[in-house]
């Protein structure tokens, strides 16, 4: 049994997971329209590579990575592209995202799937490329492109691969049901990861103690391998990347670092499953398991939903009673956020759709003043000072926010949960982060503009200088008419004649040159004569005067040729 390090902070909210675990994963009906956002990952949004009206096959590439970081987007089903435009998206910022809408044809025709018989024959770069082509991005909510995570440049080799199977958020059971039903495929995915890293890394699956069935399934599936399955005591948020790394390895990730800096990769269990599907079955990431739960649903369960499925389609499947619906939440009850409408689609990072009953959630009471009780600091898993952060966020004091390491806040909302004054602290932190990012962007834009401006000034100055130099050079080269001429040396007439003869002699060509020149001349004239004769033959039907002029041309050419040949013989003999 591996040692477990205890992470700071944390809360113990009611889990409410049983409701959605009583039924197996279901495959909902194919929706009529799929809305696939081009922006489902960290990095720049993808660029659409299809056009409106185009037919697409299931699994066909429809959005290509634009920039250094990104995850490709594929058509979740076959059909016709009907629109490429901004649509409401299930994003925290509430801003619409550019989406490709596909009207499905119900035929589910697949594009070619590059299946691999034995991935062990493939090299690590080939496998990573396969994962990149499949558009896999962190499915635990982060959306970080997995291929980029697996190939950290210039960092120490990976010593530990951690599979994050904690799923500590209340209500969410997507990963748990996946582990219960598809443990073997998850283990295969982990084997692929191990193979990519040369089978040298320690493999650890971190799972919460509260999932005995999933644990048993995983244990049974990996009985023969060297994987460690570590049970972590139930606590929210035990599944934060930094928290899990610390709990399993005792290593604390320095602020601002990525896990690869300390030789660790932490990857969500659903992502591992997607890797298996991509490498062994050749399927790009076009569907995911999503929990649809909450008291307003008649059936609470997990769905294997296509990416782009409008959530109202899933809600209809679950028999949501709109009269009892409190609100729609993307994510779990602690760190989830309200959805603007039920039109938003399922994306690669949506693990849960929560439709609570009216009585189920206490409505958020009005916010009161902070009483400095300090409970938020006790539960903060990142050991930050939430009160200070709140203070500075309200004052928009960016410098202080950065000094208090706002960047390390994982937005788990544990502080919100315990706050007796019902302050939505994390909302303030998120706004602060956005402001800091915006200020940084403005700064970098200004630096770029300054550089371009200064470069332009330098260029204009250089052009000016060069022009004035050219003018000066021309001025000095041109001799003014009234300027005194340079004195000419007086020469005797004999000297002048001698100089002229010398010049002529130096210009005299050699015999070979002359002969050569005459030869060339003759061949040219021969060509010309031939051409003239041909023209004359061709013009036999033409009027007489034209024939005459052509005949004259032939004659002229013949005479020239004769003269040239004569000169050649003279030269050769003389």
């Amino acid at each position, binding site marked *: 049994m591996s040692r477990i390090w205890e992470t700071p902070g944390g809360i113990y*909210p*009611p*889990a*409410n997971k049983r*409701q959605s675990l009583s039924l197996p994963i279901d495959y909902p009906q194919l929706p009529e329209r799929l809305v696939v956002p081009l922006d489902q990952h960290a990095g720049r*949004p993808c660029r659409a590579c299809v056009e409106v009206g185009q037919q697409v096959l299931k699994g066909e590439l429809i959005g290509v990575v634009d920039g250094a970081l990104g995850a490709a987007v594929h058509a979740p089903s076959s059909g016709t592209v009907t629109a490429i435009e*901004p649509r409401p998206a299930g994003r*925290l*910022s*509430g*801003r*619409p995202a*550019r989406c490709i809408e596909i009207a499905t044809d119900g035929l589910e025709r697949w594009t070619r799937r590059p299946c691999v018989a034995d991935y062990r024959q493939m090299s690590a770069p080939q496998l990573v490329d396969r994962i990149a082509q499949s558009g896999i991005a962190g499915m635990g909510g982060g959306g970080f492109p997995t291929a980029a995570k697996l190939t950290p440049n210039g960092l120490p080799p990976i010593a530990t691969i951690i599979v994050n199977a904690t799923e500590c958020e*209340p*209500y969410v059971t997507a990963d748990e049901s996946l582990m219960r039903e598809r443990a073997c495929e998850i283990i295969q995915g982990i084997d692929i990861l191990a193979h990519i890293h040369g089978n040298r890394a320690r493999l650890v699956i971190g799972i919460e103690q509260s999932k005995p069935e999933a644990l048993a399934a995983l244990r049974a599936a990996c009985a023969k391998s060297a994987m460690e399955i570590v049970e972590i005591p139930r606590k929210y948020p035990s599944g934060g990347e930094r928290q899990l790394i610390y709990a399993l390895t005792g290593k604390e990730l320095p602020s601002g670092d990525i896990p690869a800096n300390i030789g660790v990769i932490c990857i969500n269990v659903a992502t591992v499953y997607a890797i298996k599907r991509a490498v062994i079955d050749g399927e790009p990431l076009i569907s995911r398991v999503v929990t649809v739960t909450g*008291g307003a649903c008649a059936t609470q369960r997990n769905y294997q939903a296509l990416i782009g499925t409008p959530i109202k389609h899933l809600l209809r499947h679950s028999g949501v009673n709109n009269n009892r619906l409190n*609100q729609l*939440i993307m994510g779990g*009850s*602690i760190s*989830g*956020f*309200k959805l603007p409408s039920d039109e938003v689609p399922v994306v690669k990072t949506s693990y849960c759709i929560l439709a*609570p009953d009216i009585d*189920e*959630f*206490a*409505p*958020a009471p009005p916010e009161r003043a902070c009483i400095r009780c300090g409970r938020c600091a006790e539960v903060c898993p990142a050991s930050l000072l939430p009160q200070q952060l709140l203070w500075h966020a309200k004052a928009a004091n960016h410098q202080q926010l950065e000094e208090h390491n706002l960047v390390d806040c994982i937005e788990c*909302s544990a502080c*919100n*949960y315990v706050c007796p004054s019902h302050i*939505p602290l*994390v*909302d303030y932190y*998120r*706004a602060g982060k*956005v*402001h800091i*990012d*915006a*200020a940084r*962007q*403005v700064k970098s*834009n*200004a*630096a*770029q*503009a*300054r550089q*371009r*401006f*200064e*470069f*332009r*000034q330098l260029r204009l100055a250089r052009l000016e200088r060069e022009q004035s130099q050219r003018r000066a050079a021309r001025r000095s080269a041109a001799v003014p008419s009234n300027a005194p001429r340079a004195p000419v040396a007086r020469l005797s007439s004999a000297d002048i004649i001698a100089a002229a003869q010398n010049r002529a002699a130096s210009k005299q060509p050699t015999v070979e040159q002359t002969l050569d020149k005459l030869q060339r001349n003759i061949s040219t004239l021969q060509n010309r004569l031939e051409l003239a004769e041909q023209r004359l033959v061709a013009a036999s039907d033409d009027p007489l005067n034209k024939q005459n002029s052509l005949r004259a041309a032939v004659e002229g050419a013949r005479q020239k040729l004769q003269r040239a040949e004569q000169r050649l013989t003279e030269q050769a003999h003389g």
Partner: protein
Amino acid sequence: MGELPAASAYLSTSAVLLGLTLICSALIGCAWARFPADRDRRIVDIDDLLPQTQCGQCGHPGCRPYAEAIADGQPINRCPPGGQATIDALAQLLGVESLALDPEHGTENPEISVAYIREDECIGCTKCIQACPVDAIVGATKLMHTVIIDQCTGCDLCVEPCPVDCIDMLPVSINGGQGVASSALLATSNIIAHRHPGQALRELP
């Protein structure tokens, strides 16, 4: 009588401290006058606070020239793109009283716009290219010109020289341009609007 020595000690100490203060301030003053590099550094600091739109609304041909003018004592309230925030920052840097924006030089516009060329109307005269202070317009004689939106500072200087009036100043889209930052700020209001959803406080059956 016993208090007298204490009082004199107090006085002499104060005199010594006062002397030290005077000497130090004299030294600092000398250094200030002796090292003109200090002016250069100040110009760089001032230039850092200016928005680098290079629009010339302040009456100088760019932000750096205005920074030099401020270092030489010109008023700090002539930069409309920077607005009140820049004036306040300049005032804090220079240790002077903050002023309101001088309306003679323009008004503050919170919405950032960038230039777009209506490309089928462009006749390829290159006049806008010559006007752009940051080389953000590409094109050649008698060929269409276009604005590199990511590099456009929204200075407006290309609009007036265009002989066919085919340049529009449009608010930045959500997808790019120097306005990325401003649209991010807009998103903040949404974040606050998407308040925390509330909490399930009990375990359900």
